[in-house]
């Protein structure tokens, strides 16, 4: 099963391209809400790329980092939405 790394790298590269494509919405987004949405999607993509890289290099430490990035992404979205609500 050595040839298995191909799928992991291809999927990770594909998710990396999707992250770069999302940067367009972060830059252009007319309102702050669009930037938060794109940022949250980039966070969950980073989680996926870390998980794939952890499986690729057979190290479980990347999965812990992926969990932390996912946690921070979730908390940042909730806190920013609390801020936006106050500034209506």
């Amino acid at each position, binding site marked *: 099963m050595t040839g298995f790394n191909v799928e992991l790298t291809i999927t990770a590269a594909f998710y990396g391209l999707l992250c770069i494509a999302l940067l367009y919405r972060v830059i252009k987004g007319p309102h702050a809400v669009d930037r938060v949405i794109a940022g949250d999607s980039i966070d969950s993509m980073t989680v996926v790329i870390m998980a794939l890289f952890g499986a690729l290099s057979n190290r479980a430490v990347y999965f812990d980092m992926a969990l932390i990035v996912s946690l921070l992404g*979730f908390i940042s979205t909730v806190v*920013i*939405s609390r801020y936006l609500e106050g500034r209506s």
Partner: protein
Amino acid sequence: MILLRIIIDALFLIGGFFALAGVVGVIRMPDSYCRMQASTNTATLGALGILAGTSLYGFFVLNSLAIGVKSIVIGLFILFSNPVASHAIARAAKRCGVYMLNKSGCDQYGRDNPQ
């Protein structure tokens, strides 16, 4: 072993397809609220598909329990945390007075508690 590889590739394809659909939705949708709906699609199905694939990969190919269980934990966390985050940002957008395309029309929140 070949069957396992086919299953994992299918999971990766499903995850990749929904992630692509979500990203195209976030970029192309006309209205902030439609973009929100598309972005949850990315996080839920895109991430869960790939994490299921990596957990199978960790359990059977790498024979390391740590990778399998950890990717399942991340998948569960994303499954629980994503709806809450999307609801919070949607309500904040509505309260913040974000522009809503009248074609999407069903403004139940605005009807229930007018500004």
